[in-house]
Structure formats: structure tokens, C-alpha cells
């Protein structure tokens, strides 16, 4: 067994040593991670996301064309927290790429330094729906987490390309300071609307709500991953009326029928709000994601008179 392993190590070391220190080839699972990687990596990498921003990241198909992309990757950046559990592991196995396997030098779980909300405590069962035992994986919708993700990415890139380390750290510093400024602006814009109550379709916005002081009082889904039921929809409507809630946020990949029915019944505005870069055409980077979402939200709050 040991000699077999040694042989494997030897064989693996061969191509790695011979490889030229060219641009890093980065594959990310979702577009937000690609956007941040692009900010940090600048012109020293090529980056591609497997899922599109208008796609439900829980239900991406493990297409063989993704295997081709992953086979050539130096780095694979995943959201983690079991978001991609239904599709990423078989792709990793079939990628024939030792670098990007779990625990490989080229694998990065972007959630490790991020602030994670809704980590369940006590007994967890599937009666709670498709619950994520390691916490809510939609953590990138908070600029503070954006900075933490960027730092993890910069550190990973520096580790793999020590010669470019200074460049990556400089890019990181630039991204962080630009994001700091933008965050101040966003916080100012949102300040008058602190405490605004709303309902969202899936639990995709807890970090966004916490950062900008919004109050999510319920969900269109009765439980994560379980489609709306008539009784639950009725309960949501009644609760919205009781608390005078005038906003329903829907991710671009969910059906609008139930949210619109709720909107008609309660007089609430139904907003299709992208939780990801690429969720709508004009959101092409991490900054535009917040610009778009905040403008959309403020417009709707003003229109509906919600508070």
C-alpha cells in the first residue's frame, strides 16, 4: 500500500513540477465568487463560474461540460455549507484533477472565514425541509463577508503563486477600500428604511437583511426547499396584514404565482431581487449587485409606503 502511494505521489509530482507559472485558471461554483475572484486576481487569472446567476444554486445539473472546465482548473472556489452538495462532489470526482479535490491545494471553501447565520442548534431533521446543517449558505450578500471572501481568495492565490503574492494583496487592498466606501454609501442610502418588514421566498437574504437592518418576518416557502402550500400562504398573508408588511422578495428562479397572489391579497409589492451577480443582465459585478438590489428595494419601499 505504501509503495503504491509513493508511486502515486511520484507520478503526481511530475506534471506539477513541469507546469509553467502562467495565469491561474479559476473555476467557481457561482458567479458572485467569480466576480470577487476577478477583483482579486486582476489580469493574472482566467475565471469562470459553473452556475449562472439566474439559476437556483441548489439545483445545478452536473453536466459533463463542467468536467472539462474543472479538469483544467488550478483553483476551484465553492460556496460551501453544503449548498452545492447535490452536484459538485460527482463533478470533482470525475474531474481527474487532484488539485481541486476536497483537501487539495487548489480547493477553496469560501465560507470558512465568513460570518454565517442560521446555524441550526439542537436536533436537526428533514422535517425542517432541506435544512443546511452548517448554516445558511447565502452568506455572500453582505459586503463585510465580501471582504472576508476576497481575503480567503487572495490568500489562496498567493499560496499557489507566491511570486504574484504582492500583486494579489494589492488588488485585495484596493477591492476592500472600494468596498468600504461603497458600503458606507449603501448604509446611508438604507438608513432611513431600517426596520422595514418584508417576506422573502427562500432564505436567501439573511445576511443582507442583517447588514442593512431589514426585518424578514416570514417566507413564502413553508420550509426550505418545500414549495408553498395553501395553508402556509394564508398564514403568511394574515401575518403580513397584521404587521402591515408591504414587500415580498423573490429570487429570479422561483415561480411568481404564489408571491403575486400574496401581493394582490395584501397590497404588497412583489420584487424579483437577484441574490447573485448575473441574476439580471445589468448586474455584472459584486458592486453592481448591491447597487441594483438597494435601488430596487428603496424604489419599492417608497412606492408601497412600507416601513
Amino acid at each position, binding site marked *: 500500500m505504501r509503495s503504491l*502511494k509513493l508511486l502515486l505521489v511520484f507520478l503526481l509530482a511530475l506534471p506539477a513540477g513541469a507546469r509553467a507559472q502562467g495565469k491561474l485558471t479559476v473555476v467557481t461554483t457561482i458567479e458572485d465568487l467569480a466576480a470577487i475572484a476577478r477583483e482579486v486576481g486582476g489580469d493574472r487569472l482566467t475565471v469562470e463560474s459553473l452556475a449562472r446567476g439566474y439559476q437556483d444554486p441548489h439545483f445545478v445539473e452536473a453536466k459533463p461540460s463542467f468536467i472539462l472546465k474543472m479538469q483544467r482548473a488550478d483553483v476551484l472556489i465553492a460556496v460551501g455549507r453544503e449548498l452545492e452538495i447535490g452536484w459538485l*462532489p460527482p463533478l470533482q470526482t470525475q474531474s481527474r484533477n487532484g488539485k481541486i*479535490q476536497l483537501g487539495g491545494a487548489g480547493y477553496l471553501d469560501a465560507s470558512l472565514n465568513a460570518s454565517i447565520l442560521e446555524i441550526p442548534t439542537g436536533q436537526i431533521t428533514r422535517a425542517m425541509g432541506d435544512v443546511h446543517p452548517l448554516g445558511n449558505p447565502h452568506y455572500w450578500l453582505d459586503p463585510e463577508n465580501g471582504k472576508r471572501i476576497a481575503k480567503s481568495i487572495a490568500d489562496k492565490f498567493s499560496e499557489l503563486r507566491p511570486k504574484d503574492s504582492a500583486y494579489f494583496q494589492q488588488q485585495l487592498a484596493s477591492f476592500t477600500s472600494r468596498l468600504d466606501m461603497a458600503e458606507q454609501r449603501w448604509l446611508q442610502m438604507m438608513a432611513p428604511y431600517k426596520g422595514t418588514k418584508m417576506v422573502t421566498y427562500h432564505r436567501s437574504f439573511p445576511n443582507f437583511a442583517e447588514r442593512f437592518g431589514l426585518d424578514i418576518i416570514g417566507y413564502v416557502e413553508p420550509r426550505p426547499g418545500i414549495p408553498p402550500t395553501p395553508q402556509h400562504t394564508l398564514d403568511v398573508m394574515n401575518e403580513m396584514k397584521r404587521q402591515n408588511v408591504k414587500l415580498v422578495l423573490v429570487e429570479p428562479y422561483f415561480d411568481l404565482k404564489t408571491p403575486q397572489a400574496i401581493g394582490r391579497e395584501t397590497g404588497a409589492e412583489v420584487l424579483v431581487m437577484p441574490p447573485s451577480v448575473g441574476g439580471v443582465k445589468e448586474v455584472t459585478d459584486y458592486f453592481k449587485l448591491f447597487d441594483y438590489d438597494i435601488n430596487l428595494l428603496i424604489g419599492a419601499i417608497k412606492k408601497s409606503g412600507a416601513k
Partner: protein
Amino acid sequence: MRTIRLACAALIAATLVAAPRDAAAQAAGQAQQLQQQIDQLRQEFNQRLSTLEAQLAALQGGQPAPTPPGQAPAPTTVEVPPGAAGAGGPTGPLPVYGAAVAGAKVFNPDMAVIGDFLGAAGRNTVDPQPALEMHESEAAFQAIVDPYARADFFISFGEEGVGLEEGFLTLTSLPGGFLTKVGKMRAAFGKVNTLHNHVLPWTDRPMVTRYLVGGEDGIDDAGFSVARLIPAGTLFLEATGEVYRGDSGESLFRSSKRGDLSYVGHLRAYQDITESTNIDLGTSYSYGHNPAGVVKDVDLGRFTTQLFGADLTLRWKPLSRAIYHSFVGRSEAVWSRRQQFGGRQDTMGYYVSGDYQFARRWFVGGRYDRSAHAEDASLVDKGGSALLTYWPSEFSQVRGQYRRTNYADGPAANELLFQFQFSIGAHGAHPF
């Protein structure tokens, strides 16, 4: 962390000592209050610290169940039982061995059990199924072995007993782009042969695979598999070569001596047409010794079977509505060349099927079957099925299938088959 606690305790001690003595009498009440506050703060601090430590440990090691704050950790000692003390024996608390290895549980494989319950109504005199049966319970154990490999075990508990459906090692990072599997596995012959029962879009397996490709279990044998990607631009092209012991199915392959290995070759081409549509084409070949020439455990005939297969899968799934609508069209054709006493039987069979998802939890489907029997090319059976599937959640499924079969040598069968499937444990990968 310990130094922080010590510092905190020192600070508290210093504060208490430093209180002026002369003012002590009148400030006694105040000091006591202060101490209470400090104690309370210290307690809160320690609680938060231990919560954070537990969370950190859980994050770093993926260890479950951090001790909730305010609750003592599980005791690692027990008292000597009453009456057992004395006579030079141990006294007081005894250490409990085993608690220290609780962390080893993080290396337990991902486990899941999938139940497949089948029912049948209607009339079938040729190939009757029981009215109700717990057709199969599949236990899956999957984990990463070491930096170079992962292992997958699927044990199926059926009405006839327990069997290892698959159990193999996958070497994930061999140089040269080889994906190598060693163990017992479903062979890469066509599409359906590789699929476990619970991911089939029907309650049964198509006629052609039952008649020509090894029955219910298919080509499922111990051996090696090597798959390599062939560079072809954006086209995914994969060639697979497999060697097996040569025992598959009731009457497909049987090895009488060590040299009677069976072989499987598969070439798969996959291309994205648009972001929502893709096409998957495959050709397969298999060869092995069949049991037709075995008389009283002696292989007199030394007969072989050759299988040729072609498969086509067309998938459509609009990305922004992927959870609501999809379509999968599939077809497989198999040609069998089976040597037996009385000459070679050249037979052929195929199926064509389509499944359309019309709502988040609902699917309709249909399938047409036609296949000759491997042992007798003159017997050609035909059949058709209509299906309706409902998914209460990702982890359970209810399916009904109306199936009509026209047997060449018996009365036609009209049956209503129904199925309940349910899965517990680790979240498995979605089939593609």
C-alpha cells in the same frame, strides 16, 4: 483561550484586592454588588467563549454537536459501583475510555438508506410480480479514503437477500487523466445499466435491458474500470474500458475458469447545444462467456455472447426555471450475438422514452419497449408504459405506471404498477 481566561480571573482578583480598606465598611454593599456584576460578566464571557470555541472547532473539523453554553460537557468519569470499593481496588471516579475517540466519528462515511416499495395490480401470467413488495432497500456508504481516492458502497437488501450492488474504489487523481475504479460495480454499458433502481424514471427496467443485458441486475461484476477524456475542444468525449470476472446476470455471462473474463467498452460524447439543451450519445460493446454451453457444471460449449449498444439522451432544462420544467428523452438499442447449442441467436431490442416535468413536483412520462429474447430471436415482446410521478420533496417520490406488454408466447398483460421511494440520511448527488 486559556490565557484570556487567566487574565480575566487575575483582573477580577486584582479589582477585589485593590478595594480601599477604610472605605470597606460603608462600601461593602457596593463592593458586593460590583463583585456580583463581575461574576456575572465573567460567567457570560466564559459562556460566549466556549460557544465560540465550539463553533470554531465545528468549523475546523466539521465536528457535530458543540456543547451548548451553560451545560456541562458529558462526564468522562464514572464512580466505582457501590460495594465494589475496598480490598485494594480502585476508589473514586474511574476514567471512561472511548470518550476520547468520539472525534473519530467525523470520519464516518456519508450514510443513506433508500427504500423502494413496489406494488402491482392487474393481470400478468407470463412474468407476474408480487402484489406488494419491499423491492429493495439500498444502504449507501460513501467517503473519501485518502488524498488519492474515494470509496462508494451500495448494499441492497431485497426480497431474496442481501447483496453488494456496488462497492468500489475510485482513484481521483491519477496522472494522464485516467479515472480508475476497482471493485464491484455496474458496468458502463449504455445508460440504464449504470443506474441504480431509485434513479430510474420508471418503476421497472426496460424490456431490452432485462432480456439482453443481464436481467434486473444488469452487467454488475467485480473488476477494473479505466476512463479517459479524449481532448476534442468543447465536446466531452470519454472512452471507458472495463475488465470483469465474467459473471453477470442469470444467463448473460458466466465464467467457468479464470481466463473467462468479460469486457466492456464505452464511448460517450456529450455536447451542450444551448445552456438549457444538451445531447448525450454513446456506443457500447461487451463480450464474455455465456452459460448456454454449461452441462452439469462443465462448460462443454465454450459459448460466448457479444453485445453492441447505442444510446441517445436529449435533455432540456431552462436554467432560470430549472426546478419547474424539464424534459429528458432517451433511447437505447442493443444487439446481442449469443452462441448456444443449435447455432447463434442474433437478437435486437430497444426502448424509447420521454419524461416531462410540468410542475415543481410533477412529471409525466411514456416508454415504448420492443425486444427479442436473447435465447430465441423468434420471440419478440412489445410493450408500452405511461407514467405519472409526484415528488413530495427531494427525499421522497410516489410513482404510478400503467404497463401493457404483448408477449410473443403468452397472453397480453395489462398492469398498474406503483412505487413509493424514500431516502434518509446524507443528501446524495442529484442524478444526471
